[in-house]
């Protein structure tokens, strides 16, 4: 029972990261039509940013939670303005290849300076310790990660699906020329959207820093699982990526308990099964 709930907790935490990352991917894909291969790299940058803020500038966890995503988001917007912008109208695959190249550069630079080993990042004092729930011990920080991720996911969903800004965004996805004719600055909106998606990944990075340590390759392997999550969920809806993210985290956790050998592969096996039954993914529209 204890081991099972522990694995479920781990699954929920991984699910939080999957959800935040696939949400960012979905937002970027919706606006820019680009699969952001650099998403793992900016996730890693978020964690490193928090590390630097603490160790160089003495800025703690709480401000970092806001500052790091903004800084990395600005970096993302610069990337969009200087490079991704030039790919509009080209085949989607070029966006994937360009962001893959960017990911290699970013990860390579960090690996050069920090090697492949992890740097520790302490859990903030307020979130130390845990609660005994009777059937299991719940570390407060982990509970915080899950709650925080849920809140951010729902807020992003609300922003895009329920506000006027989100309506512009969705309209611009459907027909950018028409939306421009209404006097809305679509290129700026695209840049901001990329910044938002990248910021979400960086936020996930800050959240994960105390749990997973800060490593240059922390995003590299995670991102492929997130891609699988995206394929399973389909890119049709924001809600789809959030729910699939959490659900697959839990499935992974359960597999780790019942059949640990398959825990690395279960997401990919599920992806194959889903595709065989429903090629558009669970919530996806036809491409």
């Amino acid at each position, binding site marked *: 029972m204890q081991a099972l709930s522990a694995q479920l907790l781990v699954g929920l935490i991984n699910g939080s990261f999957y959800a935040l990352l696939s949400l960012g991917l979905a937002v970027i894909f919706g606006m820019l039509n680009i699969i952001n291969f650099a998403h793992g790299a900016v996730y890693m940058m978020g964690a490193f940013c928090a590390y630097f803020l603490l160790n160089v500038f003495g800025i703690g966890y709480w401000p970092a939670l806001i500052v790091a995503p903004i800084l990395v988001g600005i970096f993302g917007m610069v990337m969009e303005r200087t490079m991704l912008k030039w790919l509009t109208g080209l085949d989607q695959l070029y966006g*994937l290849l360009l962001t893959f190249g*960017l990911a*290699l550069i970013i990860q390579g630079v960090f690996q050069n300076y920090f090697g492949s080993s992890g740097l520790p990042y302490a859990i903030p004092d307020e979130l130390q310790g845990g609660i005994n729930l009777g059937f299991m011990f719940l570390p407060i920080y982990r509970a915080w990660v899950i709650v925080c991720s849920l809140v951010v996911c729902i807020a992003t969903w609300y922003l895009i699906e329920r506000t006027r800004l989100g309506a512009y965004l969705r309209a611009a996805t459907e027909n950018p020329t028409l939306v421009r004719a209404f006097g809305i600055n679509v290129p700026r909106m695209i840049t901001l959207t990329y910044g938002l998606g990248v910021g979400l990944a960086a936020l996930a990075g800050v959240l994960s820093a105390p749990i997973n340590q800060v490593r240059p390759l922390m995003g590299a392997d995670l991102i492929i699982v997130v891609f699988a999550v995206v394929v399973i969920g389909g890119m049709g809806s924001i809600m789809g990526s959030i729910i699939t993210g959490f659900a697959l985290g839990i499935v992974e956790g359960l597999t780790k308990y019942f059949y640990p050998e398959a825990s690395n592969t279960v997401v990919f096996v599920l992806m194959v099964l889903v595709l065989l039954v429903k090629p558009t993914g669970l919530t996806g529209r036809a491409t």
Partner: protein
Amino acid sequence: MPALTDDTARTANGRAIGDEMIVFILMTALLAIVPMTGIYPYFVMQGLCFALLACAFNLLLGYGGLLSFGHAMFLGTSGYVSAHALKVWGLPPELGIVAGVAAAAVLSVVTGVVAIRRQGIYFAMITLALAQLLYFIYLQTPFTHGEDGIQGVPQGKLFGVIDLSHPDTLYYVILGGFLFGFLVIYRAINSPFGEVLKSIRENEQRAISLGYKTDQYKLLAYVLSGTLAGLAGSLKVLVAQNASLTDVHWTMSGEIVLMTLVGGLGTVFGPVVGAFAIVAMQQYLAGFGQWVTVIQGAIFVVCVLTFRRGVVGEIAHYFKRSL
């Protein structure tokens, strides 16, 4: 969907094939004299294996418009199977190669059936995820020896007579394997099948409305590409005498894309040039450690932003020829 490559260079078919034949003869002649020039043969052999791999990949992306981001799985699978067949089962090299290629063929049928169901960017992500699935399987199954890989694979005697442990002999066998694969791809491109494939790349909806069962064509291209990538993997085992996890990892899939992109997507000789360029770069920049990754990333960025036709593509475009 705009076309992946620029085909304005493609003039009358007769002249195009004439140009390509001349370059092919030149390339074969150059490769044939390598053992007499004092160039390190293992370097060229490695380049040949990657060139075949990139050509196989190019058949799928350059002519079919399908970006597979998991092509390393064919290289790795056939490599492991060949290495296991040669070392543990003690099969002769020709049967070892057959076993590896057959494994890659089966794998490409199985993964192809799943991946072909989605298009564009989704296809890329599915192939990537399938390759990662295999990576974890190979990491855990005992026969691959996990992180250590299969080491010390015997090269043996081809057909019981040709001793592959001699570098020059091995070189010509690898060259033969490469030329065989290259010509199969060349034949496929210049056949009715290849024409249908190109029409799918340009406009799949129109190909469907013309009555072509495009899924079958795409699957056939995928299987052909995967099988020939498997041939590259088996040949690579004979050269390197080992099979390891790096050949299945997704960074290898990225390198295959890079080779093809640098040389020129949808050109006949581009992948060969690109493969040798990247292998040479890794060889000579090995001392820079992780900076090699950064340089590769930078090449990706530069290619995508300014240089989409690749080396051979640009040359062909400049001279208005088809290469």
